[in-house]
């Protein structure tokens, strides 16, 4: 920790003296750490850097940067520049895990720098950053950045398992499907189903958490009226909608928004014939042709992972697609799609079973 320094400036005390004047450096750093970790957008944090030299210096202190939360690092794709890159690198060297993950994703998918991107994500993954573990799993499952032969299903499952252990909902779903299908791991249908249920439960719990906090703050309402809330929020989380329990879709990581905007707004170029994952909240692009799997009924949508496929299915694809959907890999390596008696799509059936 910094040594305590009493900043006694030689400035004359004007009628409005600087609040931070008499505050020692270590306290200011504590305040700025709290600030960087709790801001909801980068502007709120950066404002302090422009105020005066001292606050600028202390605001860029590694301790403060290392505590910056994901929202403080939420660069907008259209504003991407060298300075943004520098800032993220700064945070990475300060030891900020979120920055490692964010920059890793950006470098891997947007800047096409596979090696550096993956190693940054690995850095975050080693510190048990669940989204990083999950993203690396997706890369392994798809063999992203390499050829079809670079797929490593078992590595993918191992990474997914670690992320799932940390409670990452997408990873739980992905692992659940892998277990049900015997994909990269020995088939264990019960265990897979259990994980899918757990994923639903976690999602519900975290949504309820936010709902309850909001409501307690506003109205001290005791009973949660699900229907009322559904009315307020419109379309809700699909997987729980079968209960009439519409909870809002969980907030994604800011970097997914970055990826989506990067390609959709044309900031970066999507290679010839490559597609984005059709799940709106994902944003991942293919790194080679036919990397992602498509819905075999309509063939119009593609997904980077089962997790995305499952979510998108219930979110919107269910209504636009036919009742019989099969999860099938292009090139005919059918896997995980069989087993559904009566031609029902395995994923859908599994979900129903999970809920029922």
């Amino acid at each position, binding site marked *: 920790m910094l040594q305590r320094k009493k900043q006694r400036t030689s*400035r004359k005390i004007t009628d*409005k*003296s*600087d*609040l*931070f004047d*008499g*505050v*020692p450096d270590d*306290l200011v750093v*504590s*305040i*700025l750490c*709290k*600030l960087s970790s*709790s*801001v*909801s957008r*980068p*502007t*709120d944090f*950066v*404002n*302090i*850097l*422009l*105020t*005066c*030299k001292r*606050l*600028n210096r202390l605001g860029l202190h590694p301790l403060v940067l290392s505590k910056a939360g994901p929202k403080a690092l939420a*660069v*907008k794709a259209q*504003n*991407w*520049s060298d*300075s*943004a890159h*520098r*800032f993220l690198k700064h945070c990475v060297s300060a030891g900020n895990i979120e920055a490692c993950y964010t920059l890793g994703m950006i470098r891997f998918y947007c800047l096409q720098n596979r090696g550096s991107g993956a190693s940054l994500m690995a850095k975050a993954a080693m510190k048990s950053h669940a989204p990083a573990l999950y993203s690396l799993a997706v890369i392994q499952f798809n063999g992203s950045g390499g050829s079809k032969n670079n797929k490593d299903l078992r590595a993918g499952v191992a990474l997914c398992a670690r992320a799932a252990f940390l409670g990452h909902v997408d990873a739980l779903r992905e692992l659940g499907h892998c277990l049900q299908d015997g994909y990269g791991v020995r088939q264990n249908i019960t265990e897979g189903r259990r994980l899918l249920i757990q994923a639903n439960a976690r999602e519900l719990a975290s949504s309820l958490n936010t709902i309850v906090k909001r409501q*307690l703050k506003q109205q*001290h309402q*005791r009973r949660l009226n699900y229907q009322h809330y559904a009315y307020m929020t419109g379309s809700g989380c699909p997987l729980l909608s079968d209960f009439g329990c519409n909870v809002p879709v969980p907030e994604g990581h800011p970097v997914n928004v970055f990826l989506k905007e990067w390609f959709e707004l044309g900031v970066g170029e999507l290679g010839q014939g490559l597609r984005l994952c059709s799940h709106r909240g994902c944003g991942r692009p293919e790194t080679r042709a036919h990397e992602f799997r498509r819905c075999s009924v309509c063939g119009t949508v593609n997904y980077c992972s089962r997790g995305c496929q499952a979510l998108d299915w219930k979110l919107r694809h269910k209504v636009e697609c036919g009742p019989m959907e099969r999860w099938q890999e292009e090139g005919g390596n059918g896997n995980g799609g069989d087993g559904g008696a009566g031609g029902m799509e395995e994923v859908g059936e599994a979900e129903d079973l999970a809920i029922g």
Partner: protein
Amino acid sequence: MSSSNNSGKVLKLKSKDNQIFEVEESVAIQSELIKNVVEAGCDIGVIPLLTVHSKTLRNVIEWCQKHVDYVEENDSGSNEEEIKNWESEICEEGNNNGSDDEETKNWESEENNNGSDEEEAKNWESEGNNDGSNKEEVENWEWEENNDGSDEEELENWESKFVDVDKDSLYALLLAADYLSIDSLLERVIKQVADVIKQCRSVEEVRQTFGIKSDFTPEEEEEIREEISWID
């Protein structure tokens, strides 16, 4: 509502402007500084707090008092203990792991015609479980409590009102909490200052709120603005 569990010893604290405050020891030792003084045995007479003004000290004492009262009222520690004891009682009676309680043993063996103690414990436990497991019961109970506007929430609200003061008072509180080493107060004030910064919509507003004078040259400022141009 302070209890007289402790010695009820009263300490005298002297503020910067020579005002004496009489405070109960249990309240005062929320401050690490005062705690160290007491433990070192130097708390005879008056403890001088040379950098804290009486106005601030009054507020600080109020904070400490509130927290002592809260802990006593809720005594969340002892709730957990009660639950643990209760749960372990259940397990003990079931497993009979060399329990010292002879009576319990006798009672069990009388009842126990059909099988092992463990079986009985299971039956007993599963009876309990029919009403929703013990843990669940406890959770429900706690949740009901919370429904009345939990005490924790009340404390949070009280704390928020407490730090909702003008800049000068906040500043004084910050320095006092730091000097006296009162973690809870320091944390809350830090959070409050961070919140105030967050509420400012622009750099100018931050400067105005905190009375900061910019000491950048126009070139330096331009440089910094460029570095952060990636913000909207």
